[in-house]
């Protein structure tokens, strides 16, 4: 059965995206959470631009009005083993320095 796939990782078709919009999910952040676009393995590399353009078309607005959704690291797939390989002491030092010294939960 032929389909136009907007997001490959989560298998979202362009029709499903349009239906979610008509059901009232009118912002990219909401559409991302509801349909799953941008939340899969590729983290939006294959679909976020395409989805934002489709939303601009559905709304009939200039694409410049569709802001980018938040893209958090990592942007490449990592295993937990790799994450655990990070030598954190230098980074932890900075994080500790950034904490308020008087916070009773953290201590001096």
């Amino acid at each position, binding site marked *: *059965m032929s389909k136009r*796939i907007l997001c490959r*990782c989560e298998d979202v078709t362009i029709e499903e995206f349009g239906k979610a919009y008509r059901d009232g999910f009118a912002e990219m952040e909401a559409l991302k959470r509801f349909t799953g676009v941008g939340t899969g393995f590729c983290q*939006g590399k294959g679909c976020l*631009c395409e989805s934002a353009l489709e939303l601009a078309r559905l709304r009939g607005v200039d694409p410049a009005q569709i802001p*980018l959704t938040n893209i958090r690291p990592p942007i*490449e797939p990592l295993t937990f083993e790799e994450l655990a390989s990070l030598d954190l002491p230098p980074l932890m030092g900075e994080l500790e320095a950034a904490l308020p010294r008087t916070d009773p939960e953290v201590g001096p």
Partner: protein
Amino acid sequence: MADPAVTILFEGQPLACRPGQSVAAALWDHGVKVLSHSPKYGRPRGASCARGHCMGCLMRIDGVPNVRACHTPVHEGLRVARQDAGAAYGRPMQSALSGTGHLLPVGFYYKWFTKPAALSKLFMRIIRPVTGIGRLPDEAAWRAAPPPPRSRDLGRWDTVVVGGGAAGMAAALAAEGRTLLIDDAAHGGGQRREALDLAAAGDGDPLAGLHRLRRLRALLHERDALVAAAPHVTRAPSTTVVGCYQPDMLLLRDAAGLSVARADRIVWAAGALDQLGLFDDHDLPGILGPRALYRLAGRDGIDLRGRAVVVWGHGPDQWLCAALLHARGARVVLALDPTAAPDENALATARRLGWQLRTGLRPLAALGRAGSLAALRFDDGRNGTRPESACEIAVICGRGKPVYDGAYQLGADLVLDPLRGGYVPRAAGGRWDGRTPAGLNLTIAGEAAGATLADLLEEVTA
């Protein structure tokens, strides 16, 4: 394929392949293009980006699930299997979902029947075997694998340049102070350099009449040589950016593990991704973008002799793909989109090398057979006619999509501009050059800033 020296096991069957090839390319050479099936509709998928982000080539390799076959080199005795191979009732259920799946909400498989616990457990037992991605690594393989090496601190640099293409090399050469040049390719000179070299060596000298590509080749070689000789530049080949942290830190990965680098100035020149457009069934295995072709036909050297390949689109990448395919022995069908404006020399090259030339076309649908591409159907702008072109591979040479993720994480102000390919710096002129809110000197340059290869070539000629 000369001197096959390595044997891998694909679902128990031994396959001979060339050392140095990726698993995805080795399977391709044995006619296996369907490497996985999509999670909801069970659609056939294969190596599509050859760059490690499209998910089409996730396979179970040496007992570990979700490994990217396009990024994994073959070795003697490597075991590879599709993750849904042997799934309890995978295929029939997937074809049923393909017809009815639009009635099910996205993510129904983890959103439904979460309570009570007994029902949830039963539902999971039924639903898990459908997708076939849920098996954990083989315990023996997992225990035998050495732990990854500890991460390294690469220290602080005056400038870190992300991207080893034309724009990244130019930025590294112009930078002052100690400069680190991060490139995900093993060789220098950008991802098109190898393709240009291979095309130039093809029968009948395919680049002879393609003057812009010859200039590009000369430019990439020249910059690569200058970078290699520049005492202030350190190259980090085969290195990818895993994340960017404000104000000034990059998390990197290479064969030796993770590392951290900081910089007073960062140049984001990470290039663009292939953009395949949204025609029917454009996710069929066999449909590639130019950047994927450069990797599969260049680095991986897949066997293309006698294969029919449609190269659709416009611009220098389309002509480079055609020349590369010709050099590799493929039968080239050059399908120009309505905006393409090739010069007389290029058209003469196409005629001289016997490429089939079709004009004024837009792709409408991919037609498949046995799960991979068999033909591309076009709209030729005339009412009612839908010409088709039989092909095993279609290369879609559209507008590249600027890579924005790292620039966004560092704090760049980006705006969606379809004329520049996607999310690009808001600044006029298509280039960001300034301070981020967190105080970093950030430059976004080249294709990552929305420039095209054609823009670059004009700049060089001017």
